[in-house]
């Protein structure tokens, strides 16, 4: 039960951050995807930079509840491409359409509805594509740590430093 309460409050904070940070803004999303207004990539990169170091510090103390998604190359890559096209067309992703709907944006509500249909279509297609796209070329739950054989905390430190450095000191806020 307490897990549910924790989940609810983490969700509340997540929704609030996405709203406050402008992640539900079409102007920001498309600005980033058009490589002009770098707001969203900077927001995400900062979160990833902070998160990577934090997660591997937790892991060092044995406190991280990791959940590594399996690398079935074809499914993940094709899924990423289909997702990316939908992202550019709608201007939302699965999380921001929920938050956008909560602020009363009707286009976000349509994306949310479309998402429920898309997930259902995928469920219906699943039996036909499971073998070719998900079981095929599936390398399991591999990470950079397991592939390179280097301790995760070193990789995390390098990646966090590189990413945050890039975002804070190299990338401009806008490109024309």
């Amino acid at each position, binding site marked *: 039960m307490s*897990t*549910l309460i924790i989940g*609810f409050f*983490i969700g*509340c904070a*997540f*929704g609030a*951050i996405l*709203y*406050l*940070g*402008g992640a*539900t*803004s079409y*102007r920001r999303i*498309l600005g980033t*995807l*058009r*490589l*002009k*207004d770098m707001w969203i990539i900077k*927001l995400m*990169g*900062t*979160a990833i930079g*902070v998160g990577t170091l*934090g*997660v591997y510090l*937790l892991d060092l103390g044995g406190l*991280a*509840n990791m959940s*590594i*998604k399996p690398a079935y190359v074809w*499914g993940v*890559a094709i899924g990423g*491409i*289909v*997702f*990316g*096209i939908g*992202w550019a*067309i*709608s201007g939302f992703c*699965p*999380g*921001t359409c929920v*938050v956008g709907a*909560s602020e*009363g944006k009707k*286009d976000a509500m*349509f994306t949310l509805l*479309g*998402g*429920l*249909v898309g*997930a259902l*279509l*995928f469920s*219906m297609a*699943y039996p036909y594509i499971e073998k070719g796209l998900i079981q095929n070329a599936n390398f399991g739950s591999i990470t950079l740590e397991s592939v390179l054989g280097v301790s995760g905390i070193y990789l995390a430190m390098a990646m966090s430093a590189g990413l945050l450095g890039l975002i804070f000191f190299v990338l401009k806020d806008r490109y024309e």
Partner: protein
Amino acid sequence: MERDYIISWKAAGISLGLLLILATALVKPLGVSTQFVVSDAVVAHKVAPKYAESNTYLSKYGEKQDWGIGYGWVLVLGMFVGGGITSALLRKRQPEQDKGSMPPMWQERFGDSMTRRYVAAFGGGVLLLFGARLAGGCTSGHMIAGVPQLAISSFIFAVTAFGAAILMAKFLYRSGPEA
């Protein structure tokens, strides 16, 4: 120049990173797209129970005992509540161009038709979740939570999703307007 944001990307990015760390310590990393299937499965088990049981994907979610509603689902419910409360309280601070259901950039490129905007939003949503479920995650599960775990699948997703989205956005706005 008038301030065109509520909180900066720095503040939002750092808080989001810290929230991810908290979630990973307390329960498990963030994720959203699975809950679309869970919601579908809940309905499917009610409306077409035979089909829901026989479909290898749906039957994994929405078990009869708890209907699959757990940590992940209340998290998404929380997003709706947290976003709703915050937006109700801070509506005045939200930049004018970010309000409403018709983004000015879209309007300038594709015209005033609300129907056109909603059809695109709906169709985009279908592709989003079909793709996310095929890939096993979305912006939150794969990018925000997956990349920090250094998962290879999440790197593949981040590159292909951003790559396709950038090409599509460039194509959609090939004739302007300025962003």
